[in-house]
């Protein structure tokens, strides 16, 4: 009897709690709690995913196209030599009205931009982790070294105009400014080190409260320059486990779901047919060969044999139920310029032939190889690869390591075959090539003179058509060398409740998707 009454009370309280969650609040899952919310030290996607809603830089990315669009700067002029950037600031932008911070002048003006951007220029990682965002501006080295407080390349023309002069042309500069947030100096003076956990800026949402590992709550900024957001606020729920996320979404605790448990996309699509959306992403997953160590060094046929032995369609379309687009093209996400090259389609016979030509007929003479993969990745594709390579006679043993051990181990010579992945920030081949195929920077240690030269040439080329042609040439060289087994290209897939409008996830991921245009009916 007592038991039943308890249940009734519990049900009543549950109903209360259910109705208490404000109608205009978006309930949004995050996989990891942010490390902090510091404007000058934002590095991880966990931190940026929150900050993108609270803070703004001069420029920002368009959530859909990935193009650079105006944010705090209304417009900008670039001189013909590519060295001088004149930014025209938006008028009437007010800093967040938050308890404990009083402003002499609440409007965001040129001196606020100078102060915020200059704070990036320090060697002290407890203040800034990203001097590189603004260090293209001339005179930065002297500030960085602490020799002077005068930032030569930064000129305040008037309250709403700043002129930045670069030391050399830099086609990434506008993109780097996206995360160079403008923060009021008064907030740092009033809050001190608390500002790292209570961000103050100009964004569409105000920081409200943060229960660590539980909830992070943002409120609508009534004074936002583009009008108060339709949502009353956003509650970020910390949900590390995808199955739990699905349970919460099903019960209506979450309004959207942006990552799913492994290999059951089909049943999720069936259950939530109307809520499911997907688009192309910017991440490429691959299994890399160590190009400097035997057996893969100087044996392109062996690498190609491995490539032909992997049935990417079976892995991604059947085993993982469409979790990614099978990696049957090159090393770039398919939507990028220069992405369209010939890939390695599954061909068992060809794989066996090449293996024999590589000097290991039926795998004879080839030492067993360890395939390394990391803790947060799915086991299944790697286990499938083990089996697929066994079909051509190659013996693979699997070694799973937790994420941080893995990423510091994977560059070592003893790791000869490994799972990795790379997320580009925007649709430019340099986002992949410069980090993974130039001068041995990737864990594959891929370092080929011809490719390096092409990539250098592309970087100096300002004509987009000519650049794409050079990149295509480099891409084809890379594919012929086969330093990777391309696994698959990410999809951005998510569930969103029917009463939520205008929700979209950027191809680069959720940390590029501000939430302020969303409406909840």
């Amino acid at each position, binding site marked *: 009897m007592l038991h039943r009454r308890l*249940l009734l009370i*519990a*049900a009543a*309280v*549950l109903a209360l*709690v259910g109705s208490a969650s404000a109608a205009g609040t978006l309930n949004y899952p995050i996989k*990891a*709690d942010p*490390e*902090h919310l*510091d404007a000058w030290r934002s*590095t*991880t*996607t966990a931190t940026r995913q929150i900050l993108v809603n609270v803070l703004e830089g001069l420029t920002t990315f368009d959530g859909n196209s990935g193009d650079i669009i105006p944010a705090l700067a209304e417009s900008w002029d670039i001189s013909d030599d590519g060295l001088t950037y004149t930014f025209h600031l938006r008028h009437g932008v007010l800093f967040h009205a938050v308890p404990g911070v009083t402003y002499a002048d609440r409007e965001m003006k040129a001196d606020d931009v100078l102060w915020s951007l200059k704070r990036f220029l320090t*060697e002290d*990682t*407890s203040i800034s*982790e990203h001097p590189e965002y603004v260090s293209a501006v001339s005179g930065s080295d002297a500030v960085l070294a602490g020799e002077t407080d005068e930032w030569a390349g930064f000129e305040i023309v008037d309250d709403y105009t700043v002129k930045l002069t670069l030391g050399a042309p830099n086609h990434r500069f506008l993109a780097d400014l996206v995360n160079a947030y403008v923060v009021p100096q008064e907030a740092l003076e009033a809050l001190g080190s608390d500002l*790292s*956990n209570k961000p103050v800026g100009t964004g569409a949402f105000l920081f409200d409260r943060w*229960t*660590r*590992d*539980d*909830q992070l709550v943002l409120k609508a900024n009534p004074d936002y320059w583009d009008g108060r957001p339709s949502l009353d606020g956003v509650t970020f*729920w*910390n*949900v*590390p*486990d995808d199955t*739990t996320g699905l*349970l*919460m979404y*099903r*019960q209506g*605790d979450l309004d959207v779901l942006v990552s799913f448990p492994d290999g059951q996309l089909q049943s999720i699509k069936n259950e939530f047919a109307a809520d499911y959306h997907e688009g192309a992403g910017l991440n490429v997953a691959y299994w890399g060969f160590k190009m400097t160590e035997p057996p893969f060094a100087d044996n392109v046929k062996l690498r190609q044999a491995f490539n032909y032995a992997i049935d990417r369609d079976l892995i991604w379309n059947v085993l993982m139920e469409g979790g990614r687009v099978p990696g049957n093209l090159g090393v770039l996400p398919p939507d990028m310029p220069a992405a369209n090259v010939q890939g390695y389609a599954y061909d068992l016979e060809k794989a066996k032939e090449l293996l024999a030509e590589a000097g290991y007929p039926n795998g004879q003479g080839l030492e067993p190889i360890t395939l390394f993969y990391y*803790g*947060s990745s799915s086991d299944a594709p790697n286990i499938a690869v083990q089996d697929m390579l066994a079909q051509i006679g190659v013996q693979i043993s699997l070694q799973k390591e*937790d*994420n*941080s*051990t*893995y*990423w*510091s*181990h994977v560059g070592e010579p003893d790791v000869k075959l490994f799972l990795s992945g790379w997320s580009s920030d925007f649709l430019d081949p340099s986002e992949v090539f410069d*980090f993974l195929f130039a001068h041995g*920077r990737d864990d594959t240690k891929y370092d080929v003179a011809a490719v390096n030269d092409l990539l250098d040439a592309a970087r100096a080329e300002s004509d987009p058509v000519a650049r794409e042609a050079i990149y295509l040439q480099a891409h084809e060289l890379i594919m012929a060398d086969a330093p990777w087994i391309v696994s698959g290209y990410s999809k951005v897939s998510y569930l969103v409740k029917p009463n939520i409008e205008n929700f979209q996830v950027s191809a680069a991921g959720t940390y590029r998707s501000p939430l302020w245009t969303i409406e909840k009916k």
Partner: protein
Amino acid sequence: MFQYVLRRGLWAIPTLLGVFTIIFLLTYLMPGDPVRAVMGEQYKRADPATIQRVRDSLGLNDPWLVQYGRFLVKTVSGDLGKSFVLDEQVTGIIGYRFPRTLQLMSAALLVAILIGIPSGILAARFQYTWIDHTLMLVALLGVAMPVFWQAVLAKIFLTQDTYGIALFPVAGYGGGSPLYLVLPALVLGTQLSATIARVMRSSLLEERRKDYSRTARSKGLGEPGVIFRHELRNAMIPVVTIIGLDIGYLLGGSVVTETVFNWPGLGRAVVTAISRRDAPVIIGTLVFGALLFVAVNILVDIFYAVINPQIRYA
């Protein structure tokens, strides 16, 4: 009495020193580059000078003896350092996560006691009847069922309308709403309640065979009277011991329960810390766990000494 407490407290010092040493050894041997943990995804984009700078700032270039000495001195003085990853002192992290774990543990303990002790008493009172057999079988099943498996099943059948009844929220802390506490506490407490029931039963049975309770019963005192007025007092001693010992179990079980139910306590913090190789948080939590265990044991010993003064001189 004061002398006994003091002596008992002093005994704890070498134990804790041993614990600290083992903990230091473990974390010192931990592979993986903490710098990578600190820098996250930017590691690949960073230049070697930046990496070296971060390494120096973490004190990772000192010889192990220096690191060990520093660790001991700091730990004893209550300074557990700063997290590699989070922008917080470890004591701060423990400071606000442990109360939530304590909340969960206390609720679980309450569940365990409320279920375990009455079940044990009933089973003993009606020994060899169907009541006894049923209760003990359930208790055995409870002991044999992995906590995480109970948690997963509970989560599916008690939070989803599609598969059961949505009596409780799926997971989370709900900003402190007690409703969110119920299911994790039930799951964590169930297994312990099985242990308590078994110990309660056998310990009460033992008392029931002793002369004093036979005498009491022969005097015509009713069963409840004998049990509650005479036997229970002595029979509780092993139960209290088990509860004391099971603080360690609760701490371990809370790791699993917190992980399954997204409870933002210390257990989940340490699992996250391990996956991030956040050594200060791992060390701090282990140190804190050991302190807690030792403290609870001292309390249990003092409790014995209070109910049985002879122990003090043993």
